[in-house]
């Protein structure tokens, strides 16, 4: 009787779960167990992929508004499931009468074109083809725009070969489009594999690269391009694996959002962690995961990458070389090197790059983040920023006139850009040094700079927050003890987040709301932040941690130049002076020796085009010189 009841309850639960909009988003946090069996891993991966496709295919059908019509993503999902083919064909014809403009229209359309090539009616397929003749497509102005644009143009030109220039919006023949696209994509991969990724470690923009690459590896006719797509996915996901704890992305980001910089889980990167590693919940709505899922069954995550994400025991340091967004003017270099450091422990991570401008809008330079049992709704992070906002900074990276860009960026869905309390963005007046789990961030802001202040983020989820007489601010986040030393006077203000409001076809709209977290704001031009993190398990008590921090030798001056001399909790003697190379145990840091990747899991020489991915006995080498992937199981 008991077992019957259990069975009935279990079935009822399953039915309830499957009827919910997003089982994995709304359900419990996944178990953090390593799936040893490859077949089971694959089956679970495909199950997650199917969850996305099934959810998307039913999105409009579930909508209580009967006027809602199928969109491209939903049509594509239905086609994958071979549902309502005639309805999909009709709707495609309707949609293609008003085609969109630019890469964000192009790649979804490529998706439906390829998935529907044996399913859609000839008329529907012809309508897609016709749209690619008549609708002029803007290429955009960022690296992710180009990746989407050229992958889409490449695939469509391959799908419709030998067609003349007057049959494409470009005015170029299929072969000319193909050659140009191929050349760009290879050049982009060359950059990524020699001097580092541009929009590195992105919380959201990972989708803008992963989706084109899954499409390329799935549908390119040219085996070389298929392989390049697959290798690029390995490269991207290896980076994701090494920068996550329990699926949540850590450390600095070239691009981040106002919300995902504090609620670190709540971003597209988590969808990819969930899909690939199964170790965190996906973001609501799966975002670009809807497009990725369409072709995701064509990619198999290498076990070595899976294990880097899910099967780590020891703390480690990973140093990577990345690059800034291209600087068109007002800079001595076009692509500035970004020296990224990540210290990953079991319960927390500390990550940073050296400061300065990586991207003018959405960069996140450094943070300490901690692990929590379930990251949804949690702000597991601590960091400080100078809220730099300047037209000149924009003009360095964008080919725009000086007067409109600042307002335009805020209007384009980055609402905090020109706000003094912002928490997203880098500054030319910030210099950061990291040694293991110690951060020293120094600021030397010239007179007259807009927003002359430092903002430090303090999470609502911290406990035992203590402003100590020593000048240290102590707190505990999860199983991590934190010590934050502001080098100048400060006050507290509430953290006001950004909540999207319905656009109704118009511009982006937001409202601000008190998240419960708070911001330490320090209105001093010469300034700095020191943060030391440690695992709670290292100390008998929080008091003992505080005592250990108070005992660290620490001296600093702000005038004429911010300088910190201190001993870290790990026993390193460091001297950081703004504008000079940091000194560790008497040795100046030499960034010129920085490799493309250096750590226990990812290793590559600068300029090598070759990444070695290792975990335990597993090794995979991605060699873009020879376009080979080699796997080795090393002897124990």
């Amino acid at each position, binding site marked *: 009787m008991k077992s019957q009841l259990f069975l009935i309850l279990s079935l009822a639960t399953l039915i309830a779960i499957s009827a919910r909009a997003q089982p994995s988003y709304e359900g419990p946090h996944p178990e953090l167990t390593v799936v040893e069996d490859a077949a089971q891993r694959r089956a679970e991966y495909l199950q997650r992929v199917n969850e996305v496709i099934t959810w998307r295919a039913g999105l409009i059908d579930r909508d209580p508004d009967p006027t809602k019509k199928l969109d491209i993503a939903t049509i594509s999902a239905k086609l994958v499931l071979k549902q309502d083919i005639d309805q999909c064909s009709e709707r495609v014809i*309707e949609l293609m*009468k*008003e085609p*969109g*403009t*630019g*890469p*964000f*229209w192009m790649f979804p359309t490529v998706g439906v074109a390829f998935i529907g090539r044996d399913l859609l009616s000839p008329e529907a397929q012809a309508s897609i083809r016709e749209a690619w003749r008549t609708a*002029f*497509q*803007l*290429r*955009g*102005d960022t690296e992710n*725009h*180009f990746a989407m644009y*050229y992958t889409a143009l490449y695939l469509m030109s391959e799908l419709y070969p030998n067609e003349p*220039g*007057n049959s494409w919006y*470009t*005015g*170029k023949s299929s072969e000319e489009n193909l050659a*140009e*696209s191929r*050349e*760009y994509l290879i*050049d982009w991969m060359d950059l990524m594999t020699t001097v580092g990724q541009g929009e590195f470690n992105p919380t959201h923009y990972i989708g803008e690269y992963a989706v084109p690459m899954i499409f390329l590896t799935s549908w390119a006719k040219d085996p070389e391009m298929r392989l390049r797509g697959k290798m690029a996915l390995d490269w991207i996901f290896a980076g994701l694996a090494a920068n996550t704890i329990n699926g949540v992305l850590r450390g600095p980001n070239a691009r981040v959002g106002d919300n995902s910089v504090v609620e670190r889980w709540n971003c597209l990167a988590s969808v990819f962690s969930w899909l690939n590693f199964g170790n965190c919940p996906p973001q609501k709505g799966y975002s670009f995961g809807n497009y990725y899922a369409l072709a995701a069954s064509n990619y198999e995550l290498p076990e070595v990458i899976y294990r880097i994400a899910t099967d780590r025991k020891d703390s480690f340091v990973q140093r990577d070389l990345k690059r800034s967004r291209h600087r*068109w*003017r*007002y*800079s*001595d*270099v*076009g692509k500035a090197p970004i020296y990224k450091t990540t210290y990953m422990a079991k319960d927390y991570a500390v990550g940073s790059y050296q400061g300065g401008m990586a991207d003018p809008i959405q960069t996140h330079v450094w943070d300490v983040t901690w692990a929590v049992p379930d990251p949804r709704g949690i702000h597991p992070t601590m960091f400080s920023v100078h809220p730099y906002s300047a037209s000149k900074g924009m*003009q360095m990276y964008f*080919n725009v*006139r*000086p*007067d*409109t860009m600042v307002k335009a960026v805020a*209007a*384009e*869905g980055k609402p905090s850009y020109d706000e003094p309390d912002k928490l997203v963005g880098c500054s030319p007046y910030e210099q950061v040094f990291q040694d293991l789990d110690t951060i020293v961030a120094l600021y030397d802001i010239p007179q007259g700079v807009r927003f002359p202040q430092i903002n430090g983020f303090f999470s609502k989820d911290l406990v035992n927050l203590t402003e100590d007489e020593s000048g240290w601010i102590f707190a505990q986040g999860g199983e991590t003890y934190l010590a934050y030393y502001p080098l100048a006077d400060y006050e507290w203000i509430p953290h006001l987040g950004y909540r999207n409001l319905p656009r109704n076809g*118009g*511009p982006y709209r937001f409202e601000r709301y008190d998240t419960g977290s708070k911001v330490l704001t320090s209105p001093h031009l010469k300034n700095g932040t020191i943060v030391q993190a440690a695992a709670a398990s290292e100390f008998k008590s929080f008091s003992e941690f505080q005592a250990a921090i108070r005992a660290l030798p620490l001296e600093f001056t702000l005038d004429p130049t911010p300088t910190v001399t201190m001993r870290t909790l790990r026993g390193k003697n460091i001297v950081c002076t703004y504008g000079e190379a940091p000194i560790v145990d008497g040795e100046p840091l030499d960034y010129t020796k920085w490799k493309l990747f250096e750590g226990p899991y990812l290793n590559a020489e600068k300029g090598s085009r070759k990444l070695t991915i290792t975990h335990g006995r597993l090794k995979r080498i991605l060699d873009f010189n020879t376009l080979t992937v080699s796997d080795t199981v090393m002897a124990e």
Partner: protein
Amino acid sequence: MTKLKIPLILLVILTATTSCVSNQPKHSASKHDAYISAAVNKSYVIGSRIVTVGGLHQRGDDGKWQHFGINDHSIFAMSFDPRDHNIIYTAALNGALRTLDGGKSWRIMTSWDITEPKDICVDPNAPDTVYLGHPGGIAVSPDQGFTWLRKEKGLPDRGKYTQTIEVDRTQAGRVLAGCETGIYLTENGAESWRRVLPTEETVNDIQQSPHDPNVWLTVTQSAGAWISRDRGLTWKNLPEVPSASALYNIAFDATNPQRLAIGSYTYGVLTSEDGGDTWADRNDDLPDPHQVWRVGIDPDTGRLYASVYQVALFASDDFGQTWQEAGLEESAVHSFVFLPKNQK
């Protein structure tokens, strides 16, 4: 679908109607054809659906601006082949484009490695040669845009961002380029360049006088306005023009050698009626804020145009003392071109 289409059609009709003004003089007797490139894209971001029509427009005999060619708000500049005005080159977000049939069909002439060119100029004395100023420097096509060569000898490795490029109409291969670090001159078809005016920030516009080809004017982002009376070899600052904020462009009045106009987002419209010695603010009758994107002067009538950013195009028949709205609501005009009708 029908429900959606009707409002869209109405919107298009409304846009077309409202972008044409009843206040226009008749232009059938004009000696010049007038063209503009305009962004009509308020609130647009990459990824949005474009519901407006922007790009190239030609002024009809009734004075109304008629769109033609691609719906592309990013056309920053255009240049015409003097032998055949149906051959048009544009500098746009996707690169340099060209039409051979007056805008019916287009081809993107550049590849992935040139993006967002800001200016394009056909050499009137060697019209197969086209000069392109772009964020990465300067490219030259010797064959009507089929091939492009980066010709940057003499330009700095860093500091060659090029905003404006203008060919001297008196000599083939003599070109002035406005870059991030100043004005550069070539006299040998871009085989080599030399700096003739250093600046700290970008040079935004360079124009040659229609009255005296030796006279050139330039405006900059932070160094004010300058005049050259020796074909661009030496430059003298115009001290009456403010320089704290960017000046976007400058225009000569072909009907009156003493009249000049400057467009500026900060200063609005500035005019001079004594060849640049003194300047007057001509914004009283413009909407506030008078954020002017570009000015242009009709060479037949001396009518002054001012594009107020994402508000509308305005026109003045008394050189800025009074203004009337002249259509193109919510637009920003990137360039004005007036072509002699008898040329083509």
